[in-house]
């Protein structure tokens, strides 16, 4: 066995001793301090979950409705879609609608209901 092998064996023996070295055990006082930290923080968490912060205002119905729809990102998408729909509707009026209606909406001339239906003609004009 070489000196290096012997030294490695010695090192393994020292490691074995270190695993159970009582001098490295935490003191009871320290254990108690750590446990006190854990219990104190647990109390803080419990208090925070049980009693709501009185300084915070409760959420209104509008907020809850908005939250249920997905919050601001969803509402922004909805608003964009609405505006786009209105714009598409108006811009398509003159290309999609029937000619007669387009004339009514697009012309600067005045139109009267009597042009559409003879039933609107007043009786005194008949005779």
């Amino acid at each position, binding site marked *: 066995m070489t*000196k*290096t092998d*012997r*030294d*490695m064996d*010695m*090192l393994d*023996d*020292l*490691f074995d*001793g*270190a*695993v159970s*070295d*009582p*001098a*490295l*055990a*935490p003191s*009871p*006082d*320290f*254990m*108690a*301090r*750590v*446990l006190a*930290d*854990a*219990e104190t*923080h*647990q109390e803080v*968490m*419990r208090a925070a979950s049980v009693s709501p912060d009185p300084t915070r205002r409760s959420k209104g119905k509008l907020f809850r409705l908005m939250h249920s729809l997905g919050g601001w990102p969803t509402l922004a998408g909805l608003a964009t879609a609405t505006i786009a729909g209105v714009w598409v509707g108006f811009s398509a009026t003159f290309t999609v609608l029937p000619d007669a209606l387009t004339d009514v909406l697009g012309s600067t001339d005045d139109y009267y209901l009597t042009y559409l239906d003879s039933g609107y003609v007043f009786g005194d004009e008949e005779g």
Partner: protein
Amino acid sequence: MTMPYDANDEIPDDALLVLYANGDQAAARVLTLRLTPKVFGHAVRMLGDRAEAEDVAQEALMRLWKIAPDWRQGEAKVTTWLYRVVANLCTDRLRKTRGVALDAIPEPEDDAISAPEMLQNRARMDALQSALGALPTRQRQAVILRHIEGVSNPEIAAIMEIGVEAVESLTARGKRALAAELGKRRKELGYSHD
């Protein structure tokens, strides 16, 4: 003051942490008993100072209590997370105190120092700690985790955020350096020359 033994070995750490976050007082006690010796022992080995190790261990465990409500069960090992926090805290302290002799370790409290065997054991442990303190920080961390804490190489890799091969290299170099250093003190430490 005597703490009772941990009687809940079968419950994993992460499950206990969830119970702790839900207000279970027994979980707080079991986690404290289970984790504090590991965290403290590792910090003492890294820093060579009990008072500083207590500060580090207390801080690391406080961070664990705080993160408990957000802990995702099954994603990471609690001990891996804790060892990483301890390593970072120790590294910060070692940077601040660079230049201070790491082998200036205070004598551990021991009531049975009158027995020659205990004296020799103490001298051996002090010699090991002194030699560990002379290693580069990363080598020291890897050697302590592997050979004293008994952590597996893959978990050490996760703790140190390096590959398994790098862990093997660090531990091998660390062991060689320790053996060479302590080999000079064989006789003094009560080991035969044969």
